């Protein structure tokens, strides 16, 4: 099946800058939850937090 090109970023498509502030605790917790959901619902095997 042909890859859907529009679902991928390629070189020079995006600008990247450092965030102006560190992450909040809530943002870190949300990220961990999201990664847990990815590990649970996809074939991608991500290690759990030690």
């Amino acid at each position, binding site marked *: 099946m042909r890859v859907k090109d*529009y679902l991928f970023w390629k*070189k020079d498509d995006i*600008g*990247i800058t450092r965030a102006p502030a560190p992450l909040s605790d809530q943002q870190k917790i*949300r*990220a961990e939850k999201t990664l847990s959901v990815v590990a649970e619902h996809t074939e991608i095997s*991500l290690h759990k937090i030690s």
Partner: protein
Amino acid sequence: MGADDTVRFNSKTFFALFSDIWRNMPSDNETSANSVGQLTIQEQEAVHFFPEYQDAIQHALRYPKDLKKEEEWSSFLVFLRNLDSALCKSSLNKRCLLFRGVRTEYAERLLFLLDITGEPGERSGEDFTPHILQDPSYVTFSASADDALEKPAERGISRLLFVYQGEPEDNALPMGRKDNEVLFPRNTRWLTTGYATSDSRITCICLERFL
């Protein structure tokens, strides 16, 4: 299409589309708009038009320098205005996990730019440096991780997958087969909030919208 593929992008053919459809499209105030939350005819046209030509539209927005000289650029702007307006009126109807990929030839470089080594088993810790990503174009995510993950040409190659937890209040348009793709407004800023790399070198990076 990336910057290197500019030669393959035929601006004459691309803008011919806008000549036919959008040059004579009346502005919103010349037609009766529906009530708030519903799309005008022009907005519906823009929504239907986008999926078929999104590769070319994304290219035009990312590399507009030479295209702005084209006669039909103004028609293109009318189209953009209507799609922007449709996106403003639309939102996700449920919480959903969404994915966007990165071409494998760019994955290593992007990991480097984000201060991530991408070693198997690695994940973000206290020293994680958040970054903001911004795409001048509209951005499509898929509810399918498989759709946004390239099959590796060889083993051991780093692959990169962005993950976003969509929320019902997000301004976004469900698109595609069975609404499994979602379109976000152009120039959306995305904040990286954490990552994890699998044993097979797939790095998943979490995104939040940076407002």
